[in-house]
């Protein structure tokens, strides 16, 4: 992991020689989730009736709870940067990532992007009743690859996943796979596409040790080809290895934004010593 990218983050102070090109600009963004069926009466019929009758008057009293997941976050990310997102559980990291990907609507503010940022992951598009083979196609198409592109990469995907190492498993339905095998195939499909702005949400490197090594290498490859990378992780080591800049979110607020070493130092103090 010696190939940590050291790119123009040093150019922060003083005039940078060439102007850096922003790829993601997040401008005062708030994200709010609304959850139905909470509040005093919970799921009872009277509570529901109450909710309907008082709908417009008071959302809160009507049992709709608002969860303010991200509060007034602003930053700009530039081409060539690898940015880590850290924070304790439930601090809004994944939510922010989804909003950058354009998958969650924002309440206030704007997110500007260059091209279409994409989350690494296709789990939701796959169907366990279908064979691995058909899932490779379905997943690839769902990520926006053309049929020809999927065909072209099909063999690479299968080889990378190592599903066929122990026999012809790719033609069996995915529900027959062990959880490790399924995770390997999912990762292989997800990692088959190149992205302009790549968003990676923690714990991607699954499977056994040899597959973990392979997938780490693959993420590095993707990262080098992508314009900008965001990585959400609780593993400070992988953040240190991968990222040159870190955003620290806490309770939805951006607490700190700076070079990896500085932010991680503060964060480790905050969470109580080094892991």
């Amino acid at each position: 992991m010696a190939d940590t990218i050291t790119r123009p983050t040093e150019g922060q102070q003083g005039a940078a020689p060439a102007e850096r090109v922003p790829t993601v600009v997040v401008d005062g963004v708030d994200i709010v989730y609304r959850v139905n069926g909470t509040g005093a009466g919970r799921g009872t019929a009277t509570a529901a009736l109450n909710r309907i009758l008082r709908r417009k008057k008071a959302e809160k009293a009507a049992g709709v709870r608002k969860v303010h997941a991200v509060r007034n976050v602003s930053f700009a990310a530039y081409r060539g940067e690898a940015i880590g997102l850290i924070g304790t559980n439930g601090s809004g990291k994944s939510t922010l990532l989804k909003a950058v990907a354009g998958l969650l609507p924002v309440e206030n503010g704007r997110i500007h992007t260059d091209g279409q940022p994409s989350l690494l992951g296709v789990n939701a598009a796959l169907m366990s009743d279908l064979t691995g083979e058909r899932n490779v196609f379905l997943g690839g198409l769902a990520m926006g690859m053309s049929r020809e592109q999927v065909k072209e990469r099909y063999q690479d995907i299968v080889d990378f996943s190592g599903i066929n190492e122990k026999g012809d498993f790719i033609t069996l339905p995915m529900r027959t796979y062990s959880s490790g095998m399924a995770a390997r195939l999912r990762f292989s499909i997800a990692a088959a596409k190149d992205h302009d702005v790549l968003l990676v949400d923690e714990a991607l490197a699954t499977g056994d040790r040899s597959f973990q090594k392979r997938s780490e290498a693959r993420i590095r490859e993707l990262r080098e080809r992508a314009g900008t990378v965001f990585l959400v992780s609780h593993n400070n080591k992988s953040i240190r290895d991968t990222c040159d800049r870190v955003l620290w979110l806490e309770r939805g607020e951006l607490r700190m934004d700076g070079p990896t070493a500085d932010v991680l130092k503060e964060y480790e103090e905050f969470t109580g010593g080094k892991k």
Partner: protein
Amino acid sequence: MSQVLHTPPPTTNPPAPPAESLAELAARHGLTVSGARPSLVQYVRQLWARRHFITAFATAKLTAQYSQAKLGQLWQVANPLLNAAVYYLIFGLLMGTSRGVPDYVPFLVTGVFVWTFTQSSIMAGTKAISGSLGLVRALHFPRASLPLSYCLQQLQQLLFSMIALVVILLAFGIPVAASWLLVVPALLLQFTFNAGVAMAMARIGAKTPDISQLMPFVLRTWMYASGVMFSIDQVLAGKDIPSWARVLLEYNPAVVYIDLMRFALIDSFQGSQLPDHVWAVALGWALLAGIGGFIYFWKAEETYGRG
């Protein structure tokens, strides 16, 4: 640890754009707003680019349906046949609605299949977004792909039913005729109608998931008003009902599509039993629902996925 949070530590804000707001920075570099709704033309283009995904998703759903059954894909045909048999038992034999309807079994089965196509398309459309939130929140694609894909799945399902239908028609001695070709335009129009309604319902269902609880009742009422198991003419004959109600019953889109199919397939079902200007009406409903539903769905494109 909450006490720390109220006093924000000195935030180092390295890429603070000097004297330029973030919005200006973004604008200067030509960045686009993430998650903004594309224009209608762009949207159609995006959908077209995803056509392979739409068809692959529909086929995948269809195949996955019976993948655990021993008889497998045979159920695609067996299911509609059994369905028709139940309706025949109740309406044909027990209730005697078959009186005065020539070729009652083909009449009934055609009605049931064509109606099921519309019914399940609308039902699937209602759940298209609310039931696939995981997908909507994980991947980027024009959301109309989902209701369209579900309707396509129903169309494929119907094509399987048509195999069963042809068997039934031949078994009951209905002659093969050139008019069978009319099935193609009739189905196309019906598909457009279904897809439009499904898209509209997808938007409503995404906002208010409760609708999917209500829809079975609405659809069942609609079914009984559409003469699926009986001939509306026979039932209304000699009854004094206001003319607006008669028009409403006659030009009900489900009736129009069902009758067109019966007219195409069954030789004893005469053109005189069809309402006036039936093709124009069928086209009108298809365009109204198809275009209206699409635009209505597109208008909320950026909000799908909100929890």
